[in-house]
């Protein structure tokens, strides 16, 4: 068995694959680096699949918390792992838009799933999952409800501030002025999409485009992103665990080669 662990800023993910590269199990929990999240996700996955740790031949860790996670054989950046993961689940992908808890990335890959080029958000949490978390809190909904809410929007509100903190006060005043929460939710999606689209265009968008990361679970967000880029966007079955899947594939590839 081969294990891939992805420790993000706000969640931890793990994927097990067998020597044929088939997924044996995958898991995500909402606890990121610096917490017990990574260890627990690994344990939970092993328990759930009935795989013993000693059966894991090689393990690769990725993500923001990769440097400090013990017990893996190798650490690889989330950039390469996302590329590898997408290459396996959505072959033919050339551009990956990955929006995670505290960063947003655009990754261009070649036919072999290797990174050609990438861009990441700079300086702040604008255009990331954290922005949406803050918006959900202001709107009084759960992050998982944003998609359905935004889907109902008839009259999208424009959020002009890219700074998460300023956008929060902007939204509060808009709500106070009578804006509907679904319109604000859609505005939040568009704000993230515009910000990330700027980065995509800088790197250059080549089709097919896939979206990964926890934020890709939000269907309306994917819609906003596709509209901002004017291209269709595919989402893998389990967008949140793509980095871990890529890590598991690297584990399989590197086993015996290092």
């Amino acid at each position, binding site marked *: 068995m081969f294990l891939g662990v992805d420790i993000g800023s706000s969640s931890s993910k793990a994927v097990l694959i067998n020597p044929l590269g088939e997924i044996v199990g995958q898991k995500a929990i909402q606890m990121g680096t610096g917490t017990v999240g990574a260890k627990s996700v690994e344990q939970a996955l092993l328990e759930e699949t009935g795989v013993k740790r000693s059966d894991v031949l090689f393990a690769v860790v990725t993500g*923001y918390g990769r*440097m400090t996670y013990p017990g893996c054989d190798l650490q*690889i*950046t*989330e*950039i*390469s792992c996302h590329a590898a993961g997408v290459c396996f689940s959505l072959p033919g992908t050339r551009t990956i838009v990955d929006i995670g808890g505290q960063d947003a990335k655009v990754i261009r890959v*070649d036919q*072999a799933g*290797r*990174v*050609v*080029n*990438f*861009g*990441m958000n*700079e*300086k702040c949490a604008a255009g990331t999952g954290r922005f949406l978390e803050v918006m959900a809190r202001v709107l009084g909904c759960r992050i998982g409800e944003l998609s359905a809410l935004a889907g109902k929007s008839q009259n999208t509100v424009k959020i002009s501030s890219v700074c998460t903190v300023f956008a929060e006060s902007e939204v509060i005043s808009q709500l106070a002025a009578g804006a509907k929460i679904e319109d604000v939710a859609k505005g939040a999606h568009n704000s993230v999409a515009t910000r990330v689209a700027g980065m995509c265009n*800088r790197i*250059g968008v080549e089709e097919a485009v896939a979206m990964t990361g926890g934020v890709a679970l939000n269907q309306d967000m994917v819609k906003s992103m596709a509209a901002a880029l004017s291209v269709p966007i595919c989402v893998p079955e389990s967008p949140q665990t793509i980095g871990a899947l890529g890590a598991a594939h690297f584990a399989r590839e590197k086993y015996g080669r290092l």
Partner: protein
Amino acid sequence: MDKKISSKKMLKEMMAEHYSDALKRKAEGKPVVWATSIIPQELMEALDIAVVYPENHAAAIGARKDAPVFINHAEANGYSVDICSYARVNMAYADILESEAENIPIPDMILSGSNICCTAIKWYENIAKKFNIPMVLIDSPFNMSYDVSAESVKYIRKQIENAITQLEKLAGRKMDYDRLKEVMKVSNENAIWWKKATDLLANKPSPTNGFDMFNYMAPIVCLRGNEKGTRLFKTWYEELQANVDNGVGPWQDQEEKYRVLWDGIACWPYLKDTYVKLKSNGINVVTSTYPESWTLLYEVGDLDSMARAYGGLYVLRSIDYITDRLSALATGFKVDGIVFHSNRSCKGMDFKQFEIARRLESKFGVKYVFFDGDQTDPSTFSLAQYETRIQALVEMMEGNRQREVHGI
């Protein structure tokens, strides 16, 4: 001076002397000029006027991680966070007049060159106003054309002549044009040794790590016009040449696995961190666009030629020129990748980076990475983010190698 003294030791001593000498001269009642870093220093050297470079001083403060005190002071005085942090540090220093890094004397005149950036104009106007002293500006237009135009040369030359007149007043004597010629000769010689030394890094393995080059930037800024500089850069060159001859690489404990070009100013507050992360990945910086700006070569005794050199700095050039220049560096130094320091302080140098990166990638398939930082302000840099980006660069450079080896 003892022949065997290492260039590193020389550098330290000479820089300490540079600062103490300026303070001493001020104490003796002699005039001191504050100048921008790539100014015709030849004029002051020839007139024997002490000159200090606030950018260099601010970098020294930044490297000690002392900048926040100054930055906060400047911001409290109303200066925006968006202003170059060298400017913020220096404008605060002009108030505080005390730093643990070094101290510089209060100026009697400002000589500012817009060839480095436009920030330098307003920054020094404020300093001149604060101390109620004259400011002389040498304005250099941005070169829309590929080369420096004849009009620009004329325009800059006139201003150099004006600067001479103003400096003569300050010095209380006339310019000795034979002496100026001598200084021009020394300055060119120093630039040549500087270039010869830094060019040696094109060897594989490179005879030193490129961060060393950043250390030698203080003297190329401050000692470019005098014989001390010649001694120093010549010694450095000889040391590097000896390494090349003996096949000595940048590190004793490690091989040079990847060679990169560093674009932008060093991230002084995190010089060690940025270096260590590169080294731990086997990455050596072998060349950089920034230090090259001091390779100022012109015809000795010819003010037009001098004007052309100062007006033709890298930052004043079009994207086409810069792309060609970077392409030449990338191939000449056989680099595997480029690290772009996206430094929000220095707009002129950094805002074109995205386009340059895009052009270079499509031209050579060279891999590059951007990281956020600042030359002095420690608050904009994140080590974890830097680490991820550098590691991703390694993974991409490896991908390139695989492609070369396996042809896929």
